[in-house]
Every structure is written in structure tokens, then in C-alpha cells.
């Protein structure tokens, strides 16, 4: 967050939050607020809400490319390992079989490709989401324990010095949000 952020009572404002009871209300509110020009928003939900990424205009996750690269690296490393150990470092005659053959190397290459791609998917998910982290401003929200239970939260995030927290709070109220609260951080 930049230094230009608004100071409210000596504290910086992270954003303004409001609670919604159903995915339909949340999605309607997001559409309304986006029409009124609020662009920097995030929603917090206890389960994945269908259509939420589209409503907030999030880009499709690039994790797939990440996992693909890791998978190819895994397969390549496996072929190299099997070739080098079998044909270079320790060429052992077993039943007259060739020291290296790509056909017999496929199972291990497949397994290492899957292993590395899976790690890439999980660690990539955490990395793109900046997790793990110990704290976040939205955890201050008074009803936060409902947000991982059955309620949904919409936050209009501060976008710098021009951010008007009162105007954002009014907009959230008008869009049907309950328990509107300014989050510091």
C-alpha cells in the first residue's frame, strides 16, 4: 500500500466491507458497484461462488502453464537421470537389455512429471495468492467468523489518496450490504 493512502484517525484505510447473505445478492451488488465505477473490489466467501470471478473481471488463473512447465521439467529430468545412471555412470548388463531405452523410461518419467506438476499446482496456488501469511486486514471484520461459515463479504479496497471511505460505505449500503465497516491496515 502506498504512502499516499488516506489516513483516518492516524490509521491507514484498507477498505470498506459489507456482509451479504446469499451469492445472488453479492453478485448483484458487485454488478451495481462496478457500474458506479468501483473497480478495486474483492469478495470473501466460504465456498467458491459460481460467476464471482467473471463478475469481478478476474483473469483466468495461469496455474496451468506453471504446472505444464513443471511437468515437462520432471519428465525431462527423469529421462536424463535414467540415461545418465544407466548408460553413463553405471552401465550394467542385465539380460542383454540396452543400457538406455526411452520405452522403459516412460513410467518413471510419467511419475516424475505428475509429481512436479502437482507440486507446481499447489505451491503455485499458494504463491499466486501470497499465502501462507499470518494476518490480513479483513480478519478485523466484526463478523469475520461468519465469512468462513455461511455469509459473504464484499470489500471495496482503497485505491490511494483519492479513496473516499464514506462514499464507499454509502455505496455498499445502497447495494444491499449489511454491517458496513471500515477496515484499517
Amino acid at each position, binding site marked *: 500500500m502506498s504512502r499516499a493512502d488516506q489516513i483516518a484517525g492516524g490509521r491507514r484505510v484498507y477498505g470498506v466491507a459489507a456482509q451479504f447473505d*446469499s*451469492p445472488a445478492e453479492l453478485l448483484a451488488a458487485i454488478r451495481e458497484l462496478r457500474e458506479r465505477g468501483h473497480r478495486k473490489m*474483492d*469478495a*470473501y*466467501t*466460504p*465456498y*467458491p*461462488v*459460481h460467476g*464471482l*470471478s467473471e463478475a*469481478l473481471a*478476474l483473469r483466468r*488463473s495461469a*496455474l496451468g502453464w506453471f*504446472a505444464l512447465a513443471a*511437468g515437462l521439467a520432471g519428465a525431462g529430468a527423469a529421462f536424463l*537421470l535414467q540415461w545418465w*545412471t*544407466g548408460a553413463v*555412470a*553405471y552401465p*550394467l548388463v*542385465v539380460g542383454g*537389455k540396452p543400457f538406455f*531405452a526411452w520405452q*522403459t*523410461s516412460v*513410467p*518413471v518419467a*510419467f*511419475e*516424475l512429471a*505428475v*509429481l512436479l*506438476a*502437482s*507440486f507446481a*499446482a*499447489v505451491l*503455485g*496456488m*499458494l504463491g*499466486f*495468492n501470497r*499465502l*501462507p*501469511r*499470518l*494476518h*490480513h486486514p479483513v*480478519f478485523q471484520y466484526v463478523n*469475520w*467468523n461468519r*465469512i*468462513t*461459515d*455461511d455469509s459473504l463479504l464484499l470489500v471495496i479496497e482503497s485505491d490511494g489518496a483519492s479513496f473516499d471511505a464514506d462514499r464507499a460505505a454509502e455505496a455498499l449500503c445502497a447495494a444491499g450490504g449489511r454491517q458496513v465497516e471500515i477496515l484499517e491496515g
Partner: protein
Amino acid sequence: MATLSQPAETPLVLGEVTPADVTRTVAGIVERRAPRAWWLAFAFTGSLTLVFVGMLTYLVTTGIGVWGNNSPVGWAFDITNFVFWIGIGHAGTLISAILYLFRQRWRTSINRAAEAMTLFAVACAAIFPAMHVGRPWRAYWLFPLPNQWSGMWPNFRSPLIWDVFAVSTYGTVSFLFWYLGLIPDLATLRDRARTRARQIVFGILSLGWRGSAHHWNHYEMAYLLLAGLSTPLVLSVHSIVSFDFAVSILPGWHTTIFPPYFVAGAIFSGFAMVVTLMVTARWFFGLHHLVTMKHLENMNKVMLATGLIVGYAYAVEFFIAWYSGNPYERFVFMNRALGPYAWAYWTMVACNVLVPQLFWFRRIRTSVPAMFVISLLVNVGMWFERFVIIVTSLHRDYLPASWGMFRPTWVDLLTLAGSFGLFLTLFLLFVRFLPMISMSEVKAMMASGEAA
């Protein structure tokens, strides 16, 4: 798949259930004090686990001769138990990955427990080959690690080393998949925590998850990727396990039908184990509205289908042995059905082929006591299938001079019993400390109106 797909009129979540009810029901189980019956079960399975530890200690300190393995039966209970436990795990991955890709919404209430079952089954399985090597303190030689003999490496042309990679990858990826699914539910437990200790533990385990739209965007992609990666993985694991046998030249093992036959058998036995465990957990924790008869009936249908595939494989093995005209092949299969281990063979056929036919009847398919007994019998049958494949093929090979018999020792029998102790203890700890139903997935299904 038409019979598996969800008819709109059968609800997957029964009654007027709200998302808050789901949280209360599922999180409540791990937040209340453990019921007395849980402690009794834990005392029993914990004791069995100690038997397991005792038997393994006795084995390691004395030597592999305490088992009944001999020449020619060099693979016996150890490898039977290994293949059995690996197979049990396959249902978990099938439910969490393959049914996810097929959009089978009924998997949602049972996938978490099935995934946990996979992990614990793989843990039990991995112990057996490590002990089977005879000097388990050198089991790390299985991995291609730089070593003091500078330049000695595993033989990658052997399916046994493929197995090391397949099983260790399977265990690791199953853990990642299971943990990924747990993260949102761990955050729910964190936010419900009343004690400092629970706040800290679940705060760390949930990795700071807050369910933001950005989180879910990447999370759902990661979940889809893992499902897509686990699907070929689970098929590869039992195929590679079957290569341990099929790539050899022993009559009874040297068969091209093994990979699909092993995978179908694995799914068959795994679903039997999921039914055994879920029927018990559902009755014990009162989860009838989340794990409905629809779930149980669908699992019984999968058992019926895979049981038929397994029965077909048994028949084809016999046909090919006859059709090949190879006297050794013919002898091995006649010996299976009529030789000294005929009792094991017919136990296998009765449990795996005949008993599941009862599932053709809807009344039996939807009767909890009936499915519980049948699922137990299927587990018995599938253990005997691996025993029959391994022991009957080894004890009569080409030369009558090298024929022998395998008789399990008390150590063999107690080690097998003990592995069940470890498996059940881990499962009891899981249902006690972690949410056994995926709350976020059930809620998502309810919110999108697919539950009713």
C-alpha cells in the same frame, strides 16, 4: 455412466439444511469431546497398532525368517499385503479425481474421508516392501541417491524401481490433493476456534486462507489440475504394480490383462473399504442427511460394475491359459482351482464374483446391514485374490523339484492384523481431529442448487 449420473429428483443433501447447519454438523464432530465409543474403538485399534509395531520390531531384530516366506515362495504375505493396501487407496483417488472430472456431484460428501483413507492405505502399503527387502535400514537404496560406492545406481529397466516411483508419487500427490481440499475447511475451524491452542494450530494449518475471490480463482484451477493429474496417476500406479508380475516370465504372472484387471480390482476393493468405513462413520456420527442412501447405493453400483470386470478377468485368464496351448500356463490355472490352495481360490471367487451379484437387487443395494457385510466380504475376497496370484504362481513353477508350499507363521498373521490396526487408528484420529466431510464443497453444491 448414465446409471451413475444424478437424477434431479433424488436429493444429495436431505431436509432443510443451511450452510450454517453443514458447518455445525461437520465442525461440531471435531470440536466436541470424543464420545466413549470413540475411545473404546481407539483403544482397540491402538492396541492392534502396537501389535504391528511389535511384529515389525521382532522382524527387524531377528530376520526375515520369522515369516513363512521360503524358496520358492519368496513373495507371500508381505507383497500380498502391499498390493492389497495400495488397491484400497485407489477408491479415494477415483472418488476425488475421476468423479470430479465427470462432474459426479454425489462424490462431494464422501470424497474427503475417501482421500484420507487413500493416504492411510498407502502408508500401510509402503511399510511392507520396505520390510520385504530384508534389511529395511537400507531401504533407501531403492531411491537413486548418490552413495559411498560412488557410481552404483538402481536398475531403471526393472518394474520394481518403477514401483518405487509410482507409489511414492502416489502417496505424495494424494497428500497434496487431500491437503488442498482441507485448506478452506481448516480456515473455518480456525475462525470457530475457542481455545488459544486451536487458534494457533488451525491458524498455521490453514495458511492464512481467507476465501477471497482471487483465492478461489487460483484454488479451483489448482484443484482441477490435481484432479486431472491424479486421474492418469491412479491408473498408472496399479498398472505399474501389476508390471511387477506381468513383466516376469512366471506362468500365472506373465499376462497382458494384468494392468486393467489390477486397476478394476483396486477400485472394487477400495469402494468396498469406503462403504465399510462410511456406513460406520455415518451411523456413529449421525450424518444421514449428508451421506445419504443415494451415495451408498451409487458406491454399491460401482462395486457391482468393477466386480463384474474382475470376474471377467478371472474367466479370461483361464481361457487364455487353455487357448495358449502352453502346458505350464494350463497347469498353473488348473492348480489354482484344484490344487492345494483351491480353498483360497474359491474363497476369492465366492467373495469377489458371487457375493456382489446380490447388488443387482435394489433392496440389498439400499440395505445398510447387507452392504456392510458384502463390503467386508469383498475386502476378504480381494485380499485372497492377491494371495492366490502371488503364492499359487510361485509354489509350482517349471521344475517339480523346486515345488514347495507356503504356510503363514504367527508373525505373518499378526503383522497383517496389525496393519489393519494402523489403518483404522489413523482413520479414527482423522475423524476426530479433521472435518471428514468437505464443508466448502457441500456448501458450494447447495448454493448452486445442485443438491436438491
